[in-house]
């Protein structure tokens, strides 16, 4: 049976130049809500400035990125504004690479979830087009007109 609450799991995504990022394998409901709220705070349109940064921030747990050879801290323990500022300070190339890696990870997870649903398929317990219990059996020959 499928669980309704996941245990946190992390996954390492390999980048170019021997670099990597550690990310959450899945976002839970609250984290997804936070991500949507950041991307579209008022529910209408999207905040273009936040779209990629917010997704990276939502997933990111750690990395081995450096500045002049010195490791740059990244951890869930850091304040959110520090995490956001650090992500925004990355080179565009590295940020795009991380975002694309996360998007590919998301697509793979969705694909895996879809495949799992298919294998669990089978005959549904209730026929979705079965008549209501109160509906008359057979054709009706009465009319109000």
């Amino acid at each position, binding site marked *: 049976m499928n669980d309704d609450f996941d*245990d*946190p*799991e*992390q996954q390492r995504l390999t980048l170019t130049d021997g670099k990597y990022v550690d990310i*959450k394998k899945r976002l839970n409901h609250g984290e997804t809500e936070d991500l949507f709220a950041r991307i579209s705070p008022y529910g209408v349109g999207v905040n273009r400035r936040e779209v990629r940064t917010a997704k990276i921030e939502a997933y990111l*747990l750690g990395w081995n990125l450096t500045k002049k050879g010195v490791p740059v*801290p990244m951890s*869930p*323990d850091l304040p959110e504004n520090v995490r956001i500022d650090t992500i925004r300070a990355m080179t565009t190339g590295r940020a795009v690479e991380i975002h694309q890696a996360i998007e590919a990870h998301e697509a793979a997870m969705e694909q895996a979830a879809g495949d799992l649903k298919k294998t669990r398929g089978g005959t549904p317990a209730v026929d979705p087009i079965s008549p209501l219990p109160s509906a008359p059996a057979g054709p009706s020959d009465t009319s109000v007109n």
Partner: protein
Amino acid sequence: MITGVVASVRWHYYTAAGIHGYTIAPCNKAGTAWDLVATVLLSDAFKMAQTPLVFVAMHTKKGLDGQCVVKTEWRWPILSCRLEAHQLTARLGPPVDTAHE
């Protein structure tokens, strides 16, 4: 007995509780069990009910060169705990490992 200020309770990569002020005392000479009393600033009720929980005490000290600051984490597994009115009392197992930054 160990006393400190900054610590947290972790569930996997999540912080289940942020602590400001704690005391740890060994229950036996072998150091296989410890008692924790801590003041909790913020906590997540769901995460605090999960397992495994780990108590993480953070402290900083100067490196061998006397200048750079080394952040160290000491970790104890939480065997059982009780959180009431911002006071956390817990029974800890032996410290597992330390992380340096």
